């Protein structure tokens, strides 16, 4: 078999196989059962909670959870602004990089606090090592924030009536120490032993074979790149992200990074099943997500291997595929696979430049973020699919004339309103943002790197990536200026916190309702039929919202290339 294809199939199968036991482990962590890492982390966590004056056993209701979440996120944002704007004189700045401007620091700080990692700077010249290490801290805790919110959701869906949904700080810290930390350490070691730097020395120079002097940026890269994937953050150490030969030196590290970004989102689905003893429903959710993922991945791999038709027309050997923006050691296949993995999962790291993909692959990347429901970010993915499940329950309930119920709780008007707001916010932010940007060409046209339909795609991609909290980009866009920094900054805030608060609020409302045991009259939410219903809801919402915009961008470009 083709070795490039074998590479991506192996990664995917390995990740799914390990996500099942890892999901079981995550469920144990959240339910407070014994795990093998207890002797290491129990004392550390106890100490942290004692000094912080937190009682990790004090239960919170959903509103208290959200208050705690928003407060600590705000602390991180302020600290981020301070570090980024003052990095010039703060320590660990061997290259003497200057502090960021206020609008750039605003965008960067928000973007890392909301787990998006839109980067309007290049790591080599835009950040000191101190800032990099601070962003690495955010990589851990913001992924932990999403996972803690998912844990609250799990707690709320138990078969009982309560408003006590565990302790936020307990979920947050344990997600970071017991789930993200161990996996990151393993992956960082793989990277370090394969040539990814882990040093505090500044910029190096060497004389190349032709006698020119060349600079080389290094830094504490291995530690950073590991958690950037495990926490589905995606913000790279260098400008070129994981296409950079020091961030991703060979095919093995590429497989490790791919595994790293997929393992937690996949495992969270299985954790849902183990935690609530609803393995069949977890399998249904996993099935829906996997179908969506494959439907986007397979054609992308085919299109990238076929290459750019405009270059085929020049009469050269185009058998390597669309190689503009791709690396030889990774190849077209692994680059195409990664581009969909990173967009469905809200990682947003790239190992090839999405701007240079063939038009329809650019569309599948955007669709992956527009649906925003297949696997999804660490924790956030479960919250997103939950909204679609609520919608599907309601619609199927209406179709068969039964009261909509989910896991023994009635779904009523209030829950539906919240679900609709969350589901419609995403298209609103993307389409309104893009429309605004297109309405002011005197500001935005100069920031585009490509003319015509592709230029429109660059703007559409930027808002899609912001609203999906993804962080990848059509990087040709000149995005470090007040328009892009500020407008995407606001999109980021809304698209992070409303899709967290919404599902948690619904779950909290459901939790306090009377539990109705399942009977023959209950609509089954773990069957394949219901899975198809969920998939249909996702497809219909996405297609109706985004098809017109996609027609103006990638689809028009595709036809213009024929």
């Amino acid at each position, binding site marked *: 078999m083709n*070795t490039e294809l074998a*590479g991506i199939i*192996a990664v995917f199968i390995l990740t799914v196989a390990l996500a099942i036991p890892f999901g079981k482990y995550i469920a144990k962590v959240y339910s407070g059962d014994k795990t093998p890492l207890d002797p290491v982390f129990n004392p550390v966590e106890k100490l942290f909670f004692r000094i*912080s*004056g*937190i009682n990790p056993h004090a239960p919170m209701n959903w509103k208290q959870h959200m*208050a*705690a979440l928003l*407060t*600590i996120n705000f*602390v991180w944002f302020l600290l981020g602004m301070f570090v980024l704007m003052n990095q010039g004189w703060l320590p660990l700045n061997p290259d003497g990089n200057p502090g960021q401007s206020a609008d750039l620091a605003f965008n960067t700080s928000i973007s890392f606090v909301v787990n998006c990692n839109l980067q309007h700077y290049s790591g*080599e010249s835009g950040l000191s090592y101190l800032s990099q290490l601070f962003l690495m801290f955010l990589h*851990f*805790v913001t992924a932990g924030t999403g996972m803690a919110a998912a844990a609250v959701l799990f707690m709320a869906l138990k078969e009982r009536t309560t408003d006590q949904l565990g302790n936020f700080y307990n979920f947050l810290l344990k997600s*970071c120490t017991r789930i993200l930390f161990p996996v*990151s350490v393993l992956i*960082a070691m793989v990277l*370090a032993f394969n040539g*990814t*730097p*882990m*040093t505090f*020395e500044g910029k190096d120079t060497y004389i*190349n*074979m*032709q006698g*020119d002097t*060349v600079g080389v*940026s290094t830094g*504490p890269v*291995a*530690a950073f790149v590991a958690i950037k994937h495990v926490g589905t953050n995606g913000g790279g150490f*260098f400008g*070129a992200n994981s*296409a*950079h*030969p020091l961030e991703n030196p*060979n*095919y*093995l590290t590429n*497989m490790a990074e791919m595994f790293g970004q997929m393992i937690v989102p996949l495992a969270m689905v299985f954790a849902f099943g183990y935690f609530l003893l609803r393995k069949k429903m977890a399998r249904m959710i996993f099935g829906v997500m996997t179908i969506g993922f494959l439907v986007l991945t397979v054609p992308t791999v085919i299109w990238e291997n076929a290459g750019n038709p405009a*270059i085929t027309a020049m009469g*050269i*050997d185009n058998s*390597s595929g669309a*190689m*503009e923006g791709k*690396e*030889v*050691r990774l190849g077209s296949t*692994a680059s195409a696979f990664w581009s969909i993995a990173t967009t469905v999962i809200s990682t947003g790291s790239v190992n*090839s430049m999405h*701007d*240079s993909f063939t*038009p329809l692959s650019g569309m599948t990347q955007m669709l992956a973020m527009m649906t925003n429901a297949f696997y999804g970010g660490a924790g956030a993915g479960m919250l997103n699919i939950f909204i679609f499940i609520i919608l599907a329950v309601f619609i199927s309930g209406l179709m068969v004339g039964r009261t909509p119920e989910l896991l023994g709780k009635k779904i009523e008007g209030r829950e539906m309103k919240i679900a609709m707001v969350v589901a419609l916010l995403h298209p609103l932010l993307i389409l309104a943002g893009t429309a605004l940007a297109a309405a002011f060409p005197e500001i935005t046209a100069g920031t585009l*790197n490509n003319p*015509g339909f*592709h230029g429109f795609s660059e703007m559409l991609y930027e808002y899609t990536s912001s609203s999906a909290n993804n962080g990848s980009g059509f*990087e040709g866009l000149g995005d470090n200026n007040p328009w892009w920094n500020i407008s995407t900054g606001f999109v980021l805030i809304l698209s992070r916190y409303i899709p967290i608060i919404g599902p948690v609020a619904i779950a909290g409302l459901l939790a306090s309702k009377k539990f109705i045991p399942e009977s023959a009259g209950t609509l089954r939410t773990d069957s394949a039929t219901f899975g198809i219903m969920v998939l249909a809801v996702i497809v219909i919402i996405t297609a109706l919202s985004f098809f017109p915009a996609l027609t103006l961008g990638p689809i028009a*470009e595709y036809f213009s290339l024929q």
Partner: protein
Amino acid sequence: MKTNIFPAIKLTALTLMFFSGLYTAVIWGVAQFAPNGGKGKMITVHGKTYYANIGQTFTEDKYFCSRPSAVGYNAAGSGGSNKGPSNPEYLAVVQARIDTFLVHNPGVGKKDIPVELVTASGSGLDPDITPRSALVQVKRIASVRKVSEEALVQLIARNTEGPLLGLFGPEKINVLKLNLALDQLN
């Protein structure tokens, strides 16, 4: 807000020490046992040291050339061209690269030029080319260096790195290593 603010600040300080401090220290400590103590893989030849993973510009006809780069192989600032597939300016650049290649490589047919030799990589620092891209340059190098084509083909075969474990990923050749070996050949 009031009940959360002090716990939030204290927990932030502690986790900052743990994840920015301790985690970094652990990985840094482990990396000391990695090749070259975690400073990247190097190649030293005749007292000169190069980064094994970072590509270099080779413009002289006597060397195997590497891929075009949007940043001129300057590893202090990485990046791709980010040109869209339908951009007319970009397509003109690719056409010009093809024409230049044909001028420097007489006797090579257009249909034998691999696409990766006329397109820029994502990082601008791609250290590798495919075996195809090396073989298509054999004629030129043989005539400039006055060596047999046979010797060059063997050199390429020796420097080709297979897929991971023979199973996963593409074949590739590190251009720097290939050119260092080429200099040894004479």
